[in-house]
């Protein structure tokens, strides 16, 4: 099958650059590790462009909740005492508005701490379960 899917690429973007003042509200949304018990740490997911940097072992430490939460410095997702993350939580977000730069924390928001999704049996490994 050679069917082509939807095109959200830049080459297909509509808009005239001179038609109005360009606007930007930018969120540096850190790609973070979900609490999925099979989830490799981000640095283990990412390879350098040349393919280097691949660790020999792909899987992170397995396990459910941990009492040694390390996200207390920045995490506002859940109370630290209930946090089930296995790694440093990076749920804080750096926001940059056009002309103004600020740092904000998102109140929770999609992973990193206990209230994520898919962290039971399957999680990252078998997301249907």
């Amino acid at each position, binding site marked *: 099958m050679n*069917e*082509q*899917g939807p095109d*959200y690429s*830049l*080459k*297909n973007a509509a*808009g*005239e*650059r001179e038609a*109005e*003042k*360009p*606007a*930007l*509200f*930018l*969120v*540096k*949304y850190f*790609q*973070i590790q*979900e609490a*999925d018990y099979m989830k*490799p740490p981000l640095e*283990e*997911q990412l*390879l*350098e462009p040349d393919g280097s940097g691949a660790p*020999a*072992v*792909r*899987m992170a*430490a*397995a396990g*459910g*909740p941990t009492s040694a939460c390390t996200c207390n410095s920045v995490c506002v997702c859940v109370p630290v005492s209930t946090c*089930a993350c296995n790694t440093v939580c990076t749920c804080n*977000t750096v*926001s940059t*508005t056009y002309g103004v730069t*600020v740092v904000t924390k*998102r*109140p929770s*928001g*999609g*992973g990193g701490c206990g*209230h*994520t*999704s*898919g*962290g*039971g*049996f*399957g999680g990252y*490994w*078998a*997301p*249907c*379960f």
Partner: protein
Amino acid sequence: MAHSADYRISAELFVVPCEDMLILYAPLKGVVARINAATAGLLRDLQSGPAFELNEAQEDVLRHLTAAGVVNGPPDRRLRVHAEGEFSPVHVTLFLTDACNLRCVYCYARGGDNPRPSVIPLSAAEAGIDFVAENARRNGAGSFSVGFHGAGEPTVAWKRYTELVGYANRKAEGLGLRASCATCTNGVMPEEHARWIATHTATATVSADGLPALHDLQRPKASGRGSFSDLERTLRIFDEEGFFYAIRATITEHNVHTMAEMVEFFDDHFHPGDLQFDPLIFTGRCHESGCRGPAEEVYVREYIRAYETARRRNRLVGFSCLSFTALKSFYCCAVSDGFTVTHDGYVTACFEASAPDRPFADLFVYGRFDPERGQFDLDLKKLRRLQTRNAYNLPYCSDCFAKYMCAGDCPMHALKLGYGIERGARCTLTQAVGKHRLATVVRENEAALAARPGGSKHE
């Protein structure tokens, strides 16, 4: 005056209309930005148009994108794919039995239908554990994990289940490793079993389809009676023991309109770590029961309502197609290092292809345990072919903003629905929900900014 030639796009960029916004999304740079059409045009022309001079406002926008690495930054790093290296899994899934105490109306595996159900041979299961434990020791992983799953209800084979949890722990201890056991269960079990699981294993996913009446409708016992009261008792025990579990609901045409209420119900009465609501794919026992999944637009609308209900409670509701905050190049273990030993001793990459007579099993069943030699015979070439199916190798997905959210979605679902293996089957759902999540990120951060003393709204 600055010139466009001074700038180059250094990220894979998508321009996504979301609700009333236009969003720039650079997944591999972790950037989400609300833009307008002029910014989209600026970036498009920067990438592919003839050179032009920049005005001050354009230069300012590019300065911010430069700071984020989207412009003039390093190239995107590549996500790991799983075609490299020796096959050395450190997770094994064990299908303990095809017996089941429920007769869920949509069961893909038709659990419990076999009049002569089998239980996984101890030797095959232990060999599977030995294999991943040895891999973990050799690789220096520190731990390995064992999952207990279908095709029936694993806790029905209670003796085998407890034997294998104990075996995994002893094996780990002997090698100086940590074993983590997880169970996918329907939660219908004696009280003492629930307490044992809570105190001897790491985590579980419990299937629960929502409000009691609807749960009973969709997940009856073999006797035809409802199973909710049994499930409720198990969840209470898990909560008493502080056990970490996820609730996974199958969303059908019956319960789709109650998804938001399901969030409230589960959150009010139990303490699950995670919630996941997945739409039913018509398969297995659906052919007899007639149970159908929700219409796509209805699922999307209700999922968003459930998601927002959950957010107000500081929760998330997952959807298997949408890994938003985690980067993903492959959908699941079926196209990675899936190592699942079934109750008949077969080795499969996909949970749904649990035996050679299952649909599309020839693509996914890649080995069998040989009891004579006590070893697995594996056709790793078959696995390697599956591993090439990832977000980088699916032309259909190449220009889709959601390509690293779903990584091509479930190959089995795509096959069953006649799409072939080269694309996902639930693109409309994934894109709609993905757009909502992108818009949520922007909205929440704009609100946070506006709430700050001296905060500023975007231009």
